Structure formats: structure tokens, C-alpha cells
């Protein structure tokens, strides 16, 4: 009898301990599984960071909704508008000057990739711009109407539908390159710039100051900061913006080559974590992942790089008041080019 009582007491005492043991064990297993899954796939981090970068939809303007896209084949391409901006500190956050305007078109069926740089000094009519009879440089569009107006004008002038945009700032570019471990570059020539913007020091007094820049012409490893100097410098080139467009396309292609390496996928969590506050796109998570898969599938596809530069697609001249150096598009030749690229 006594034994029974003791037993029941013991049972009563042991029950909660066992439950806690089970609880702790479950918790430990759960945590271990989560950590294992996280390390193995990086999925959680990717998802979280992608949410911050992606899906930043910008409503299409009324004009955009009525545009007739000229080229039949253009809907077989995924057209992405790449925008690179000047130092954010220099501008109102909603009207940043775009120094780089580029269309990247990918056709997964016909295995074609185009990279087309639009000169920011293209002299075009911009809706809402009141001076110079409504004419200004292309980069004015982002200043007065943001990404929506820039996208609208690209669609209107070039006759193709822009499916997505991706915007990156200067610091974003540096972080992007650094996250990829830097880039190994064969420079197009030694870069010598006597007036390179010194606007990333964080010191507002230096925002409009400049430095001397020299980059050797020898093949070299570049960190993010060095790569930015390489693609941003324009005074050391005969044609300024066109020269740097060439260098920008070169570095983008090096980055694409890096993405072609499946091992880079493991670095995506870190990549997106680094870029979450400085890169914006309207692509959704599934769209980003689909595009990454397409890029991997088109690993060996040759990229056709085009700069709409003089003398083939434009000419340099002066226009406006006060008078400024601008680039006049040769629409006849540009239209022929786009017909060749996106027509049937």
C-alpha cells in the first residue's frame, strides 16, 4: 500500500519533467532543422531580402497604357530598363538624375540578349517640361517624372514595352560589386580623369568637389569603389558618356559571367541583404528567380552590346537656352536598328 502511494507520487512528480523534456527536445529538433534548412538553401534570407528589393511596382502612366508597340517580336523579349543614378544626396529623393539608361532585352526562345545604352544627353521632347519648347536631355525625365516618366519615354521613343525596371545608386553599385567579390577587368584603356566627382565621402561640403583619377590600362582586380570609378569616369574619354557606356556594358557582362556560375547562387542571401536599401525593381520574387534561371540557361549566349552613339545613331551639337552640349538622335537609323532587333 505504502509502495503504491509512493509510486503515484513519483508518477505525479515525473510527468511534468517528461513533458518538459519532450518540449525541449522538440524545440531543439525544430531549431536544428531551421538552421540546417537555412544554411543549406539560404531560402529564408533570400525570401526576406527579396521582399525588400522586389515588387516595388510603379504604376504605369495613362500614356503608357495607350502606347502602340511598333515591333511584333518585342513581346517575345523580356525587356528590363536599367537605371543608374547620380549621388542620391545631390537630389530630391523623388527626382534623381539618371546617369545611366540602358535596355537589357532577353529572348529565352531565340537565345538572344541585347544591351542597349541610351545616351542621357539625347535631346528629346519631354511631357511636362516647360522650357526650350518642351525639349530637354533624356535624363531630365527622371528628374521631373521619376522612373514612370523615363519608362514611358523609352517605350514611346523606342517602340518596345518595358516589362521591368531596376534602379541602382552609386553606393548600391559599389556594394553589388563587393558582394560578388570584386571584378577582374581588362580596361579598355588607361583612365585619366582630372575632374572625377568626389561625392561619396559623406561630407556634404565635398559633394560638388572633384579629384584626379588614374586607372592603369593593365588587367586588374577591382573592388566596388574602383569599379565604380572605372564605369563612372567620363572626362578621360573622347566621347565622354559613350566611352563610359562601353565600360559600363563591359562590367555588366563580367557580372553576368559571374552569375553564370552556379556557385554564385549560394551567395544570393548575402547579395540581397547587402542591396536591400539601395536597389529597387518591380520584379516579383518568382520573376527574379525565373530570370536567374533564364540567365543560367543562356550562359553561352553572346550578348549584343549597342551604344546609340555618333556617328551611327546620333550626332553631337548644341541646343537649348542656356546653350548646352547635347546629342541629337538619328531616329531613322535607330528605328532601323530596333526593327532589325525586335521586328519579325
Amino acid at each position, binding site marked *: 500500500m505504502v509502495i503504491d502511494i509512493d509510486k503515484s507520487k513519483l508518477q505525479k512528480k515525473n510527468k511534468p519533467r517528461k513533458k518538459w523534456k519532450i518540449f525541449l527536445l522538440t524545440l531543439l529538433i525544430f531549431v536544428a532543422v531551421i538552421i540546417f534548412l537555412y544554411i543549406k538553401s539560404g531560402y529564408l534570407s533570400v525570401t526576406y531580402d527579396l521582399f525588400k528589393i522586389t515588387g516595388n511596382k510603379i504604376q504605369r502612366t495613362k500614356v503608357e497604357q495607350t502606347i502602340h508597340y511598333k515591333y511584333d517580336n518585342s513581346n517575345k523579349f523580356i525587356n528590363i530598363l536599367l537605371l543608374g543614378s547620380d549621388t542620391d544626396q545631390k537630389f530630391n529623393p523623388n527626382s534623381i538624375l539618371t546617369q545611366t539608361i540602358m535596355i537589357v532585352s532577353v529572348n529565352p526562345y531565340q537565345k538572344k540578349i541585347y544591351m542597349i545604352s541610351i545616351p542621357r544627353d539625347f535631346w528629346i521632347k519631354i511631357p511636362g517640361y516647360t522650357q526650350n519648347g518642351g525639349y530637354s536631355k533624356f535624363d531630365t525625365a527622371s528628374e521631373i517624372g521619376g522612373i514612370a516618366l523615363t519608362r514611358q519615354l523609352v517605350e514611346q521613343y523606342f517602340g518596345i514595352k518595358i516589362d521591368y525596371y531596376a534602379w541602382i545608386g552609386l553606393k548600391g553599385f559599389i556594394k553589388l560589386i563587393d558582394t560578388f567579390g570584386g571584378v577582374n577587368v581588362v580596361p579598355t*584603356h588607361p583612365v585619366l580623369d582630372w575632374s572625377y566627382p568626389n561625392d561619396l565621402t559623406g561630407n556634404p561640403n565635398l559633394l560638388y568637389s572633384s579629384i584626379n583619377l588614374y586607372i592603369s590600362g*593593365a588587367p586588374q582586380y577591382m573592388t566596388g569603389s574602383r569599379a565604380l570609378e572605372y564605369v563612372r569616369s567620363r572626362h578621360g574619354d*573622347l566621347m565622354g558618356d559613350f566611352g563610359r557606356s562601353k565600360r559600363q556594358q563591359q562590367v555588366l557582362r563580367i557580372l553576368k559571367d559571374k552569375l553564370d556560375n552556379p556557385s554564385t547562387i549560394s551567395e544570393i542571401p548575402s547579395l540581397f541583404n547587402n542591396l536591400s536599401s539601395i536597389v529597387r525593381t518591380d520584379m516579383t520574387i518568382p520573376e527574379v528567380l525565373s530570370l536567374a534561371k533564364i540567365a543560367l540557361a543562356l550562359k553561352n549566349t553572346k550578348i549584343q552590346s549597342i551604344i546609340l552613339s555618333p556617328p551611327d545613331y546620333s550626332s553631337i551639337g548644341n541646343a537649348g537656352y542656356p546653350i548646352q552640349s547635347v546629342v541629337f538622335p538619328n531616329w531613322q537609323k535607330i528605328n532601323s536598328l530596333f526593327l532589325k532587333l525586335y521586328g519579325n
Partner: protein
Amino acid sequence: METNMDFNNRNNIKNMSNKNTKKGKKILGYGVFLILIVFIAYILLKYGTIIESILNPKNIGFSISKNVTLSNQYNLNGRLYFVKNNNMWYITGNTTHKVTNTNNVSDIGISKNGKQVTYVSFHTNYSDLRQMNINGTNNTQLTDWQSQYIQNEAWSATPAYEPNGNYIAYDTNIRKLITGIPRAGLGVWMFKNGTTFPSYSSQIYNETELTIPTRYTGGDADVTWPNNNFLLYTYYIYYTGIAQPDSQIMLYDFNTNQSYPVTPVTSEAMEPRLSPNEKYLAFTERKGNNSNYLYVMKFDLNSILNNTEQSSFSNYKNTLQLISNGINAQPTWSPNGKNIAFIKLNGNSFDIAAKSIQNKKGKLKFGNLTYITTNSEIDSTSKMYWLEK
């Protein structure tokens, strides 16, 4: 007296309160469990990358290795000097030696007798030339380009000694101070070895300008001085387009004070290095979007000076391909001319590689590619020098 009913009621209440306590504990337990899960999930999401990098360190971002690692596949005869992390090193046999610890060495130029080094010390806005003994001692500043006005600050690059050691040639954009036009690129200048220049004005008036660069190209580059009578350099000019300049190898002749093309203007050739017997020229050529291949061609000084080379470029047309993939830079001949070392991108690291060269009845045959270093991140913008022991 306590009745049975009272006792039962009390027991019931006790049981009920026990049940409630158990339920409460259960709910509390689940609550704590849920809060813990949410907390862990939050921590993983917020700081996941940091946790991951601690638990699973990978090559995210860039880290520069501090050491030079030898592949142990190559026993180097002589001494091979190079730059890494802004310090000068050399390899001999199968050992490495770090010569300097000043962290300011780039673009080394070593005298033919192997006793002196002139190098470039880079700063924000300008670079200076410095000189030291081959063992790193007696470090002296040759030029001082620091100024309170950045328009008065200039760049120096790729110094090279005259073979007899009397003069040093190098690239610089000091022409901008003579013309007042800031956009002048780097041109080839020379000065007497042993001279120091305390100010830019003293430098301008005591140096000789050998070449005038094409504007907006960045200028001339890669000066080497293999023979007292001539030097070689890379010349940039806009020829086939305006989005990027073309490059070619040029020879500056001290007898006529003129430059002569060694390769065609469209060749995209650069980094000329003449073999010790002066019969062959090793160089690199830019290919495609981002490649640089390594070549060897016959070198005939007479045909270059008589412009017959210019009219046909027959030697260039018969160029032999040494390496036809990836990124290669800074070729250098072994003292006996039987090997070429060069810097090659190997994965993500620039490493030193070599190939043997055999001359069989006038025909060159190349051996297999061998890496001398691995994962050593060598400075691919600085020349290498292969000296005898």
C-alpha cells in the same frame, strides 16, 4: 465537523483548480513555445546572414590573402620580382621573400644590373616616384607632386631604367602643367638617374619629353627600355571607333628621336617585353569583352626603323599564340630566354604562371602551362622582373 459533502466539494474545487492550473501551465507552455519559435524565426530572418557567415564562412565579399603561396610545381632559377599588396617580393628556387614592408610600392622598374628599383607610390590625386636598393634599403623620394591645388598634382607610372643605368624613363601627365590643358594624358618622359625633384617646376625643366600622347586616351603606357638605343611602349589612339581607343606597341628610337609602330594600330597589343637576345617580343593583346591573350612575335629592329614592318607587319602577322584564354598580363623573360613568366587569372586570383620556350631551328615551341603561385592575388598592374641570382 467536516461533512462528506464539504469534503467532496473541497476536493472538487481542488481538482478543478488543479485542472485549471494544469491547463494554464499547458497554455503557458505552448505560448512560450510559440513565442520562442517566432523569436528564433525573427532572429534567423533578421540576422540570418551574419549567423550563416559565422557558421558557414564562405568567400562573400573580397579578402586579400596576405601571403604568397607557391604551387611547388616549379623550381625557379634566378630571382623573380613582383608586387603584391603594395610591397615588393621575389621568388627564388621554391621560396618567397618579402622585400619591403612600406605598403606603398607599385609599378616597379628594376635596373639591368639588378641593384636599383624605381617604383611608384600612389596617393589620392597624384603619385610619386621613389627609388631604393634591390634589398629595400636607402629608400629615397625622387619626385614630390603633392600640392594644395589638385590641378598641379600629376601621375607617374611604369618607370624603366636605361640598360646602362644612366637614365630613367616613365609615364607622366606633367605636360598638363606646360600647356595648362588638364586633359593631357600620360606621355613618356625621362630624367637622369640620381636626380631628385623637390618641385614640379624643377622636374619639368630638367626632364626630357619623349612622346606626346593622344588626348582622351589616358595616354601612353607600359614603358620598357631593353636597349640603350630604343625603348618600347603602348600607344593608345582612336582609330576604329570613338567609344574606345585602339592600342598598339611603339618603339621610340633615340637616334632619330621618333616613334615607330611595332604592331598595327588595330592590334589592341600592349605590355611589350623583348627577349634577352632581342630576337623575340612577348606582348599581350586585348580580346573580346574582357580577355587578354599572350603572344610572341619575331622582332626585327631594322624593318621597324625602315618602316618596312609598318608597311606589311609581316612579323606581327606570324605571331605565335602562347596563351589563348582568360586574362594574362605582365610577361617577363627568364635571363636565358628559355622561359616566360606572366600573371594569369586563375579562378579568382591573379597568380604567376610560366611556360618554357624552345627554339628548334628557328621555330619556337612552348611547354605546358605551370603555375608558380596559387591563390596569391599578385598585383597584375605592376611589371615583373626575372633576374639572375
